[in-house]
């Protein structure tokens, strides 16, 4: 995972230069050097799941981030200054996540922090971001940002949240698949968002949730939960995360074969999993939510083409260097888009150093329409500055002959819900 692009000053090198400056007592003088010159790089602290249960996401978040940084730097950087990524492993652990933010703010003197997917890491880290007054751009999908649980320094402009995603799925599931749904989901915040918001949206459509089956996120075998799924289930709604997702779908196939209920899954259940793995044939004909379609579609935009090539993903959503190394395509675009939003925010606010952090946040808060473009290859978005949450199109694909083919695209309006918080009223 070591990158050699010149934009990426490795942490080790940085550590060496700190070591060269010397002992603890010599450090206060060192802290401000990056502000000394206006051509000094803009430093972005990248909190990444390198180890722990989120590692597959971490690896692809990292690749996407490096690709975006290269594109931004090749086209002149931000206000003429290059971007520099300082990455730090959070171990997919909330406590280490918070410590990583401290390192960014106080040791590496980063301008902003960004990254990370798992909701518990975001929830554990966000209060530190608020205290450190460090803008913290998350790419996590959780509803925790828009729910008002976090603070003014935490924003999610590059990826939509679960509440808006599931709400947009509900009509499609009811109209095309069935009215009696059983939900299988991981038993923590992310899964609870699915449970609460999908069932609310689905019931308001006149559908019925007949059973809810939570599964602990650390579980490694799943068969024992499947008998809990009632016989009269018409649609099985599944969403799973963690290193064992492949086991989950395999066992699902083993249990039902071709006789089971219709399947509607969030791609998370098979994210980073090769869909042509033996045992997954039963998924053919089932539907998936995708944040961004893994397989290049017939109507692929030039922007998706550009983004796909830049990150090094082939038309099947796997790494160009290893077709077995499947990307987390439905989520990782969020890193690309978030970095472009940081760039734009910094340019609009005339960001020069850490004292402009609040200006940067205000600039992002005042963004609204983000049209489909190279900066937003997943599609157009509407950002809500009050709730710090972005809204966008959702994609439903159908597994057809081993490929996921686009079946439906929701409008952005389908994903709207009333504001639950106004962060702009909080002081900096």
């Amino acid at each position: 995972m070591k990158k050699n692009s010149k934009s990426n000053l490795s942490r080790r090198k940085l550590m060496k230069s700190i070591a060269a400056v010397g002992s603890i007592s010599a450090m206060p003088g060192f802290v401000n050097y990056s502000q000394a010159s206006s051509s000094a790089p803009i430093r972005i602290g990248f909190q990444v799941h390198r180890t722990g249960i989120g590692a597959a996401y971490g690896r692809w978040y990292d690749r996407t981030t490096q690709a975006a940084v290269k594109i931004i730097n090749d086209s002149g950087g931000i206000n003429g200054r290059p971007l520099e990524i300082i990455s730090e492993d959070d171990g997919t652990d909330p406590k280490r996540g918070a410590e990583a933010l401290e390192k960014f703010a106080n040791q590496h003197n980063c301008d902003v922090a960004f990254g990370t997917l798992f909701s518990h890491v975001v929830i554990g880290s966000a209060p530190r971001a608020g205290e450190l007054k460090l803008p913290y751009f998350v790419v996590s999908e959780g509803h925790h940002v828009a729910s008002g649980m976090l603070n003014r320094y935490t924003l999610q402009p590059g990826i939509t949240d679960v509440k808006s995603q599931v709400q947009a799925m509900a009509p499609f599931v009811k109209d095309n698949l069935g009215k009696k749904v059983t939900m299988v989901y991981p038993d923590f915040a992310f899964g609870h968002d699915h449970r609460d918001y999908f069932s609310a949206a689905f019931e308001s459509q006149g559908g019925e949730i007949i059973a809810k089956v939570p599964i602990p996120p650390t579980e490694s075998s799943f068969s024992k939960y499947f008998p809990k799924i009632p016989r009269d289930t018409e649609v099985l709604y599944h969403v799973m995360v963690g290193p064992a997702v492949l086991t989950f779908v395999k066992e699902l196939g083993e249990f039902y074969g071709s006789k089971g209920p219709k399947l509607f899954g969030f791609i998370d259940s098979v994210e980073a999993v090769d869909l042509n793995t033996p045992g997954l044939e039963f998924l053919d004909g089932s539907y998936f939510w995708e944040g961004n379609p893994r397989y290049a579609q017939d109507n692929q935009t030039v922007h998706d083409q550009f983004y796909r090539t830049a990150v090094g993903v082939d038309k099947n959503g796997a790494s160009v260097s290893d077709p077995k190394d499947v990307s987390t395509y439905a989520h990782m675009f969020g890193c690309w888009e978030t970095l472009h939003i940081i760039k734009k925010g910094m340019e609009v606010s005339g960001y020069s150093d850490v004292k402009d952090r609040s200006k940067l946040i205000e600039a992002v808060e005042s963004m609204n329409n983000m049209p489909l473009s190279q900066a937003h290859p997943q599609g157009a978005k509407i950002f809500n500055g009050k709730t710090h949450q972005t809204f966008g199109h959702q994609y439903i694909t159908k597994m057809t002959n081993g490929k996921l083919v686009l079946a439906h695209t929701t409008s952005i309006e389908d994903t709207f819900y009333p504001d639950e918080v106004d962060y702009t009223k909080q002081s900096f």
Partner: protein
Amino acid sequence: MRKDIILHLSALLFLFLLEILGIFSEYHQGNFARILVLAAYGVGYNILFGYTGLLSLGHALFFSAGLYASGLSIYHLDYNIEQSLFLAICISALISLIIGFLALRTIGVSFMIVTLMFSQIAYLSILYFGSITRGDEGFVIQQSSRVFLSMDLSNPKIRYYSALLIFSLCMLINLWIAKSPFGRVLVAIRENSDRALMLGYNVKLYKLFSIIISGTISGLAGACYGILFGYVGASFAAVSYSIFPLLWVLIGGAGTVLGPLIGAIFMFYLIDYASDITDAYMIIVGVALLFVTLFARRGIIGELRFRYYKWIS
């Protein structure tokens, strides 16, 4: 005797001067605040392991008891800091009493496994009662709740002083125990519990007191960790948080007052440094554990005491 007290007080003074003279960079100031609270946890662990000779593999239970008692009471019941700390101390004392009463029916390896299992039960219960504890993801203690005597505990300076205060308190209790007849009985039990029994000491009762003191200090440290750093989560109840204090105490020196602090500083920075070199930084913990068991059974302070300064407590 006097040299000893002067040494420990000057260690505290040194930690105070580091801050007041502004020697810390912000980063190290934050690290040291964490280390001091964790070292207080180590002090609690040391009373049971270092002085009484009982190896617990489940102290994360006590740490998280304090953490969750204070955290949940602030989060759900709007307790203020004083009330939540008081509650945390009571709860961790009570839990130590119960666990001590049950676990002390076993000895040796069984004691280690029973403590490990109790702490596992606590960890699983935190996950099971997720609707109250918010399970894996944990919860945030908002900055606005973290105010003590109108001081903002999230302010780095105040946080450092608070951490130092907690550590000093725990360390001085430890020093006092080490010097007291009570502490000498504990050491006698560690060295030879049969002989202590024959001398007429109620060994079980002493061990029980030791667990209560140890568990309560660990719980206090846990409560302070949550209050000072604003996050309460299940990872603090996991097995690794039972291993860490054992490691700090072993490295610094079991049965020494300053050992847990030295061990915590050493390990914190070793892990911090290793994590810049490799993703597999926890390998350092494994290597350190092997090193102390194979080559340095007395730990740093213990070795100093053995070789040069017999008067160190």
